[in-house]
């Protein structure tokens, strides 16, 4: 047992590394249709959609995600990749029309379509087609009023109409822009012109793509392979960089580094919890061993997290935070080094728990935010400034991260302190110091980040501060951190008070991060934001409950009572 405890961390790390290597290897494994026609080369073909050049694979994934809520589809009982669905849509439309790719949840919409199966949520074009006219009529009725005034049915029907329209748009080859420009003065073009009377594209790349689709339709593996290689050879000259990025993006989509990282954070969190639980039971040696394992797993998750972020920065050519999705990825990422640094100093384990929980939670949030499609969408002109994205957005997001980190450490301080004896002695003193330190940093980062945002606004439209919801959200975080610091300096709060205020900071930060985005769409918004309202509410209620726990008199805190 003694030796096992000693070597356990190394074992865990080796196991996780092996797991990651196997993921990477399987992402590199060739993917083919059942009849052997390879999908790899086609997946890597760069196309232009939503203003961004991306691999056809990403286009297929994003489209299918928007239609059906996932990136694979059910092909007669087996789950197949999105790219196969897209190619089937283009080469075998009759079969593709039977694929159940339209997600419909609203019961009234289902009954409108005369669908009686209550439990199924995905439907095919063939099932919807007989009622198409009614869907169009209903959505026209619904779209006569603004989104905010629509009731859930109207939103659902309007969403369904949007999905059907997108489906038709893609099927008819108007989207994406498949044909790459090869000569100067050419632009990306769809195979079929957007205007019904327009001429189909005839250039060399359009011809090459048609050859690919024809070979694919015929199921001729060799011919398809040859046609795909021919097109890639054509692109290698004019689009060398796009080809490279395309290959990386396909690899990235298959590996899902953020998903794997979230799993690892979860594993680390569980290891940390077990370490805390076994501490009083077993001999002293298992706790440090498990904690070291957790730390190792977090470190590996962080490496993966970092690789994913770096790849995104390379693919987009932009600083890490460009939208809500990437802010979630970044907030988690930025918390980890802070927590690990603290852990390295203090060695109390609680910080690993906080780090892994934040890493896991933020990646789950990010995953839910990615449902709207492309997470690397192009930016509105006014935001198109790498300098300000790199300074204001990154600094202010680090400020959010630090406020969350302080709040999460405070949670473990309160829960661990009140309910357990694990934090006896030094830990009960070290944690508040750490919370305080992180809040100092949070105040600095959020203040500087917010003011930098003001300066960006002044540069862009001459208004340093406009009191709009997003700005106010940032100001609230700054003020909250300042309030904590001044209350502590003035002796109004001590360790417990600072911890409680830091937990309150979780509410303030969550509200500023998401709440301000929800105001515009009203309480009955749609899609993710609909459930997000409840998620946010739930999060706030949990924080309030934790505050109540903290109100237990310090004499009853088990960790404090146990102090000699």
């Amino acid at each position, binding site marked *: 047992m003694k030796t096992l405890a000693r070597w356990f961390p190394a074992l865990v790390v080796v196991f996780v590394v092996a797991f990651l290597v196997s993921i990477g290897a399987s992402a590199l494994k060739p993917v083919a249709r059942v009849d052997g026609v390879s999908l790899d080369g086609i997946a890597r073909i760069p196309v232009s*959609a939503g*203003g961004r050049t991306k691999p056809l694979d990403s286009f297929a994934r994003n489209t299918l995600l928007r239609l059906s809520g996932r990136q694979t589809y059910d092909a007669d009982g087996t789950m197949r990749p999105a790219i196969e669905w897209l190619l089937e849509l283009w080469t075998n439309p009759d079969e593709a029309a039977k694929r159940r790719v339209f997600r419909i949840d609203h019961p009234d919409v289902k009954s409108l379509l005369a669908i009686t199966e209550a439990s199924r949520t995905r439907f095919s074009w063939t099932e919807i087609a007989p009622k198409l006219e009614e869907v169009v009529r209903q959505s026209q009725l619904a779209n006569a009023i603004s989104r905010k005034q629509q009731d859930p049915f109207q939103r659902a029907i309007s969403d369904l109409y949007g999905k059907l329209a997108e489906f038709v748009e893609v099927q008819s080859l108007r989207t994406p822009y498949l044909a790459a420009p090869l000569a100067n003065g050419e632009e990306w073009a*769809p195979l079929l012109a957007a205007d019904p009377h327009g001429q189909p594209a005839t250039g060399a790349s359009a011809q090459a793509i048609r050859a690919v689709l024809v070979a694919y339709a015929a199921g001729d593996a060799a011919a398809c392979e040859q046609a795909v290689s021919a097109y890639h050879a054509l692109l290698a000259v004019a689009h060398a960089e796009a080809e490279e990025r395309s290959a990386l993006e396909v690899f990235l989509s298959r590996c899902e580094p953020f998903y794997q990282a979230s799993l690892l954070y979860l594993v680390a969190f569980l290891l940390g919890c077990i370490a805390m639980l076994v501490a009083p039971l077993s001999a002293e040696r298992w706790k440090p061993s498990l904690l070291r394992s957790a730390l190792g797993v977090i470190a590996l998750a962080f490496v993966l997290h970092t690789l994913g972020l770096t790849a995104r920065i390379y693919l987009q050519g932009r600083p890490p935070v460009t939208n809500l999705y990437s802010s979630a990825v970044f907030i988690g990422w930025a918390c980890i080094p802070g927590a690990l640094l603290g852990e390295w100093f203090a060695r109390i384990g609680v910080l690993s728990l906080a780090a892994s929980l934040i890493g896991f939670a933020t990646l789950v949030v990010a995953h839910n935010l990615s449902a709207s499609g492309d997470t690397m969408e192009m930016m509105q002109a006014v935001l198109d*400034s790498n300098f300000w994205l790199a300074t204001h957005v990154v600094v202010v997001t680090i400020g959010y991260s630090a406020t969350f980190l302080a709040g999460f450490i405070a949670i473990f301080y309160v829960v661990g302190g009140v309910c357990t004896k694990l934090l006896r002695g030094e830990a009960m003193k070290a944690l508040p110091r750490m919370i305080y330190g992180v809040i100092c940093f949070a105040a600095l980062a959020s203040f*500087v980040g917010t003011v930098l945002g003001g*300066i960006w606004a002044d540069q862009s439209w*001459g208004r340093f501060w406009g009191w*709009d919801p997003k700005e106010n959200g940032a100001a609230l975080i700054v003020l909250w951190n300042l309030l904590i610091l001044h*209350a502590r300096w003035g002796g109004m709060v001590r360790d417990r008070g600072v911890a409680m205020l830091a937990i309150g900071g979780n509410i303030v930060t969550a509200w500023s991060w998401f709440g301000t985005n929800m105001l515009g769409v009203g309480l009955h918004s749609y899609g993710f934001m609909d459930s997000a309202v409840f998620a946010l509410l739930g999060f706030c209620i949990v924080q309030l409950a934790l505050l109540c726990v903290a109100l237990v008199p310090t004499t009853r805190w088990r960790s404090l009572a146990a102090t000699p």
Partner: protein
Amino acid sequence: MNSMPAALRAISSLRLAVVLFALSIVLILAGTLAQTQEGVWMVVDRYFRSIAVLIPFQLFVPEKVLRIPGVFPFPGGLTLGVCLFVNLLAAHIVRFKLSWKRMGMIVTHAGVLLLLVGEFVTGALAKEGTMTIAEGASANYIEDGRTSELAVIDASDPADDLVVVVPARLLADRESPLITNGLLPFTVRVIEWMPNSRVLGPMQASKQQLARATAGTGTQVAAVAVGVATGVEASDSDVPAAYLEFKQGETTLGTYLVTPRLIGMQTVEVGTKRFQIALRFERNYRPYSVQLLDFKHDRFVGTETARNFSSLVRLTDTAQHVDREVLISMNNPLRYAGETFYQASFAPDDSGTVLQVVRNPGWLLPYLSCTLVTIGLLWHFGVRLSASVKRKVA
């Protein structure tokens, strides 16, 4: 120290600072929530630049969940800002001693004071407006999209136009819907005033809607009132409209629809005299003029998302001997004569540009403030950190 009056101790106390922070947090939260119902400028004036504000309880609870009538009084942004300013200043006078260790906090607080002053100066002195120029045309005035005016022009004198301007607040005043002016041979009766409106084209409007106006463009298009643009939607600003009846004595000269969305003037005839009328955004004339030479609007391939837009303009100011071409684009404004011209938007069909024109004498203060606070905080926390590291080593 003991001889310090209790009052001075109170106003310089950290306790007061914390209370003020808490009040500011509540105010900002309320002011943000209020933007779900009102436009951002309304909220800024009522909440953030006021002495006191009445906050409805309903703001904090969705109406669908629970209906709560009533309001509670709360200090406004001006009050809180002044209190924070005084508190901070007093703290430095009373408590802070000049020392290297304290230097960081002193610099930081100086920056914060500057920030408060900056926002005050902006609130009091900054002016914002827009300049809408069609391609090829030029403009020598700035429009204030938040206030409009009814302009009546008597162009009968070939040498000089006589312009009578009626501010919109008189039109909006329900108490006195009759407007008279000694220079005008007619009175104006306000039939309906719409703070924000939508124009319905000839195919969209119903017969009844078109029948509301008896003369002018209003017989072909109609306007309907829509809710004011709220802060959270952050879309377009409000565009007012009005149905006005022009009367000479008891005889009606016709009912007109006026709104800034209608381009060009309409004509009211009184006997042989012709008056031109228009509801337009308030204009402030400038000694210089800006001509739009070329407007570019690039979109991302296959989308309507703007990638960049820019205006090539010719700036002319005869008195100052200025006549030059300037390219104004996103994040690249033109600064001239104390005003800054930003590329803000564009006219439909890319036929012209909309420049945001801002005069803010205090624009430099936030830059200074940010620098001071950053240096101060880094200093302060740096001193603290090195002290605690030293303690740990020792």
